[in-house]
């Protein structure tokens, strides 16, 4: 069981990272333990709860189902990076305004999943929103407020986009 280690280079939240990691180490453990990016959370460790959802090369993935070594050469964005860039600012504000989080443990993953839907544009129905976040477990809110917040941001962004048109 001697762990094999490999060298990887990747971009995490805009920073170039080179490190030596055990081949068995998951992406979320690498982010949390090696890079101290503790905003991504570990909930179930088998891809069900979505607390570890991060963005890799533009797609959302489960940080517990991907190995760090698979991210060699990849661009990884976590809640820390998505917050600092301002990309999620309106969504975060809507979650806060609507109390769409209680304990906050699922929130980084939930925001990443919600933004993934919102980036597709338009105003999805409440059912479509529920369907899209149905891989992200929240024990606190009962989801209603989360759906409200995502719906409100979709409406707002659509309005802004429409307003932008000449």
């Amino acid at each position: 069981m001697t762990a094999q280690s490999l060298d990887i280079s990747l971009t995490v939240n805009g920073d170039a990272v080179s490190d030596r990691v055990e081949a068995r180490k998951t992406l979320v453990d690498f982010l949390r333990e090696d890079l101290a990016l503790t905003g991504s959370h570990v909930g179930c460790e088998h891809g069900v709860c979505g607390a570890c959802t991060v963005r890799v090369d533009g797609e959302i993935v489960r940080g517990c189902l991907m190995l760090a070594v698979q991210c060699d050469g990849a661009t990884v964005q976590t809640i820390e990076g998505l917050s600092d860039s301002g990309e999620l600012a309106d969504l975060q504000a809507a979650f806060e305004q609507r109390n769409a989080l209680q304990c906050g443990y699922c929130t980084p993953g939930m925001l990443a999943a919600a933004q993934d839907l919102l980036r597709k544009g338009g105003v999805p129905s409440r059912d479509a929103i529920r369907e899209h976040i149905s891989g992200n477990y929240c024990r606190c809110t009962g989801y209603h407020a989360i759906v409200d917040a995502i719906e409100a941001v979709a409406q707002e962004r659509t309005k802004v986009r429409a307003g932008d048109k000449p």
Partner: protein
Amino acid sequence: MKISDDSPPVLTALDRPNSYIGRSVPRPNLHRLTQGRGQYVSDVTLPRMAHVAYVRSPHAHAEIKSIATNAAKKAPGVIAVVTGAELAKVMTPWVGVLTHLKGLKSAPQYPIAVERACWQGEAVCAIVARTRAQAEDAAELIDIAYRPLPAVTDAETALDAATPTIHASLGDNLCFERKLEVGAPDKAFAEADAVVETTFVFGRHTGVTTEPRAVVADWNEGERRLTVYQATQAPHMMQNLFAKHLDLAEHQVRVLTKDVGGSFGIKVHTYADEMATVALSKLLKRPVKFVADRIESFVTDIHARDHRIKAKIGVNKDGSIAAFEIDDLTGIGPYSVYPRTSGIEANQVVNLIGGPYTCGNYRARARVVFQNKNVMCQYRAVGHPIAVAVTEGLVELAAAKIGMDPLEIRRRNLIADEAYPYTSAAGLKFEKLSHHESLAHLDSLMNYAALRAEQKKLREKGVYRGLGFASFIEVTNPSAAFYGVGGARISSQDGATVKLDAQGALIVASGVSEQGQGAESVIAQCVASAFGIGIDRVRVTMGDTDNTPYGGGTWASRAAGIGGEAAWQAGKALRANVLAVAASVLQAKPEALDIRSGVVVDAANGAERLPLEELARIVYFRPDTLPAGIQPELIATRHYVPRAWPFAFTNGVQASYLEVDPDTGFVKLLKHWCVEDCGTIINPQLVDEQIRGGVVQGIGAALFEQCLYDERGQMLNGNMADYLVPMAAEMPDIECGHVVSPTADSELGAKGAGEAGTAGAPACVMNAINDALRPLGAQPLTDMPFTPGKILRALGKV
């Protein structure tokens, strides 16, 4: 979000200028959490910190004959391998009993099993290593010889003479029994026009907090002090227990609780592996971290609600309920959980059955038995979902039997809104409830008549929709009657300290704690309103036994009603202190002054006299300019405990509208409503979100959640793929309404709201499913969770 129209007109005592009471103020801690900048215990790392992994018993019941540790001790990164016998020299065992639950007994429990493992998942050996991965690698090298013992798994036969006794020293497998008889139930049943009898079964389930249990214990040999970073709901309770079982003084122990990833009652108990982690830190003189993985969570986080209840209701043709009778049997695992015990849930069931109704004839028996499964204890809404499902299930079955509308039978039996104070058949004392007003509000909120018409029309098209209801009561704001009188050092009082900083802002320390409910916001709202300052200038600290007033923490819906009142009173006290200083500076009478929006003003006309910044500057830096003899006191502490009532009961009523597919047995939830009365509403949004989250947790119990065990005591579905929890796609929108009956026990008048949703939702969903299936001649479903298979069986299709 139907709430503004429900708010009370004006609550005079609370109606201060710039009051935040009754306003949906966003929580101050949310910005941190949405950015991923929270600090959960699983995020904590300390210098020299080691990680522990536990080897857990694969057997439900086994003698531990030997533990071979040599190979593991030599594995890379391993710091120590410690057995139960070794750790027993560091930490004393505990027994989960309370003296007021007469006859309740349990056996000593050790941090790590000694000689015998009593459930699958009990820790048998600890491996401490530099990383968790290294500890887990080494765990595979531990060789434990077990001699399997017969496992007691079926609660029904746990008390049979032929069944082995789990703890020989206790004599039998009975943990606790309670019997109650009120009025003349036999006579009432004999004279009733109809009697309905059935058996309700509740699936053992668990909290599934998104963040598993986590603890970092740091024994500093240099200061002889223990600091424990723990995701707990009750920091002071844990401080007491760590000190007690490590033979330390309480002041040698500091418990720090920052962000907690969900609690729901799961994190208010003593867990052997957390106690062991603390003991390991003391033994090894360095920080040790334990974070449960998901499988460990399923087999060691407390389970709850494993009850089988034979139940009976007598009813007359006019709808009047003649009598209730129940016989409850519940299996709680091998130990009564410390220190709250595993007898409370059954005790609550006995207390709460029939609680909303005037019926005075009641017989109950509850038996709590030991078994070789994971332990059961208090989980959100303790006992309520069971009692409400039994009561409301019986009421709707009785209504169907006599052909009466389910709302009408309730109207004829609910305690009248004018009847308070009132004592229930089981002896519960109600200060002021509003069952009828709540029911009327629900009726109009959901447009009951229209839904009935829609249901009828759709049935003709072969679409089977159902409406189900549940009236309920909820225990909140517990006094010492809950635990203190039974000998547990669990504080029912709570405190708040408020101080003015040197720039005129307020720093508040509160004994209640935050796990997402919004306690931090509620405390800030109470202080800001009582004192007279913008909420953006109030900072709240919690979860630190060194730096907060002694308190009970956050459980049993107590944070707002008890912690909030303490904060309110502390804010008022500091206001008086500040006005005394201001009066001396301004040469005015204190009563002629007020504080509004952070400025000392003339009470009469609001004219600004002295900003708080200036007052603070004078007091802290130029006290020489104050009049002679003035010694300002810009800090105040107040404590509060309910004195007039043992509990502040709340009430409410829920409704579920759903559709059952008779071909597949699938249930589609269409809408859910809850009207509740938690007294004064401090923050309407937070109350609604407690209700909604609670409702969904209750829906989980009704439709999905069950810890499945086989006859050998092996949990079969200890992962989140096989143990189903409510996810967004299956959940309905939930509409909330409110009636406001403040408690006169406190100035604030707030009662709790954390458990109302969970209390009523399972009953509602059950009743709605049975309402949907009634025209198809299905047997009433009373065995939760209502899986598609059970529904098809009830329809006779499989």
